[in-house]
């Protein structure tokens, strides 16, 4: 609840800022809107009308940013996980240590977590098929732990992050080549509540 209110107020502040920036042109947007969506094309012949309103398009761009944030908050957990704001962190073969690229991904994911402080996540540790089924259960656990530890070092609260290992049970790429293996050695972020 509190999260929603703060987000709403952020949106309001952003809106008022953009409105102020637009200055005297602020009554124009309603007029500007009809032009881009393509109202004119169906009406055939008279094309010469559009040129003047293009200047009024300036105040509009800031708004989609606010809407995008709202959109993420409004989407269901399933939708969010299907097109996730989190990126997976990848690991080298037989390793549970985050390299520079992996740390960069986790850092970016941490900032998403800070943006949405109500979200809880599970970090899934996955492995490629080149390890054994049994040992990979432990290796996946270590990968998930490595990510959680790094998230905690970035200030994310421990009770927001759960971990689970799936070993090599759920490959993301069913292939049997280097590319498939690389994409299967990952820590996968799943939003579990928000």
């Amino acid at each position: 609840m509190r999260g929603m209110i703060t987000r709403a107020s952020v949106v309001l502040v952003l809106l008022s800022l953009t409105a102020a920036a637009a200055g005297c042109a602020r009554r124009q947007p309603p007029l500007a809107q009809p032009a881009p969506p393509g109202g004119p094309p169906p009406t055939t012949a008279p094309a010469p009308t559009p040129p003047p309103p293009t200047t009024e398009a300036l105040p509009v761009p800031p708004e989609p940013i606010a809407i995008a944030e709202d959109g993420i908050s409004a989407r269901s957990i399933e939708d969010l996980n299907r097109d996730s704001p989190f990126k997976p962190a990848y690991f080298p073969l037989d390793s549970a240590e985050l390299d520079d690229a992996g740390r960069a991904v986790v850092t970016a994911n941490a900032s998403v977590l800070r943006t949405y402080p109500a979200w809880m996540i599970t970090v899934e540790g996955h492995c490629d098929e080149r390890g054994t089924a049994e040992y990979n259960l432990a290796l996946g656990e270590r990968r998930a732990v490595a990510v959680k530890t790094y998230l905690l070092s970035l200030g994310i609260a421990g009770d927001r992050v759960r971990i689970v290992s799936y070993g090599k049970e759920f490959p993301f790429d069913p292939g049997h080549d280097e590319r498939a293996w690389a994409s299967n050695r990952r820590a996968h972020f799943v939003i579990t509540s928000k």
Partner: protein
Amino acid sequence: MNMRNLWSGNLTTFAKAGSRSDPARQRWQDGPLWRTVPVVRRSFMRRRKVSGYLVALALVAGGLQASGQAPQQPSEIAVVISGDPGTPPRYAVPDFVAASPEAADAAKTITQVLFDDLAFEREFYLIPRDTYATIPAARTPDQVPFASWRELGADAVVFGSVSRTGNDVRVEVRLFNIRTQQSVFSKEYTGTAANPRLYAHTIADEIHQQQRALRGVARTKLAFSSDRNRERMVGTVENRDVKEVYMADYDGANPRRITTNRQLNLTPVWSPDARAIAYTSYRRGYPDLFVALIYDGVQQEPTKGGTQNWLPMYSPDGTRIVFTSNRDGNPELYVINRDGSGLRRITNHPAIDTTPTWSPTGTQIAFTSDRAGTPQIYIVGADGLNLRRLTTSESYADRPTWSPAPFNEIAFAARSGPGYDIKVYDLATGTTRQVTFGEGSNESPAYAPNGRHLAFTSTRAGRVQIFTIGRDGRGVKQVTRDGSNFTPSWSN
């Protein structure tokens, strides 16, 4: 006691074998019949009618005792059928006689399964059945054409007959020594017609016991994890196949589904009494231990949730379970009593410690650790002391599986080229031998209760399937074909 009379005479037992197909209604039952026999002893029975089926068994107890001990006694010469010096005895298993058309299917099944069971231990040479065509069929035991069998080079021939009344069958079987023309094994079984394979398995085990003093595995079971039901997990974005625990006969027949929770259910292992299967399940969203008492329809949760636990393994006496857990922040080995009490931590190292297996005496545990940088096999006392490293020349070794006595060895999966091969470490000599040689990737070895075979998974036929192989690397057989199948465990 006159052994010869016993074996050539009308020794007849009435073991009520077979039962309904629903595993929840079945149970392995120790009956008085088997008390006199030291090693393998169970009969498949309907629970509620057990007492009614066990009449008259006391009559044959003496004979069965002889069956169990015969090979150690001087009079065995009359009983044990030998082949030419240095070669295994040559066995013929002609078609069992069907007393009526309704018994034909059961007779055919029993014949084929008995042939396969007798071949499995490789103690006998089974004369191929397509060479029997010219030999006249015997309708009764006294019609067995010994001269013809002798011409074919047989040392032993089985005579069997099957009669059927409604849902009940009666199976009579004799084993003849071709040279002496004597019946050295003669039994009769009655029971349900629902699972004719069980009669063949029982006959094969008893013949192996009597003729070779060998505990056969024809009545043992495999438990494994499988995606064969082709169900998808719910609540996940990706398409994820569930895996459920299944059991089947040692040859893959009669598969039965044990779990039905539509999650990941992995690494099932048999309890030593073969009445329970412990396994790793993600039904709570994370790995935890569960126990299915398969003949009672009861589920137990020894670790009771709240912590992540996986890869259980029963101690040889069945009283304890060793497993991997990250409850203290890192994969370590722990032991609990079967009821979940008495938790004890076995390992304590910041590296991964996982995949435990017990020594046959229950005093040591072999496991996998990457404390030296790569996964390798180690042994530690069940008290957590006396750690030592076993594998030193492998780049990656996992799933140690300690053999039963009398063998003193540990099988494991070793990285080999792009995949894995099954290798065996001999604890007496410290040497390692290879069992598989790069046909697909081979993982997850599990010993048969007599130590003579290993079950393992392989990709040699495409998807991951379960195979069995002799501990010498010979006699590989594919056991599963439906879906993909993983992490076999072989019952006692």
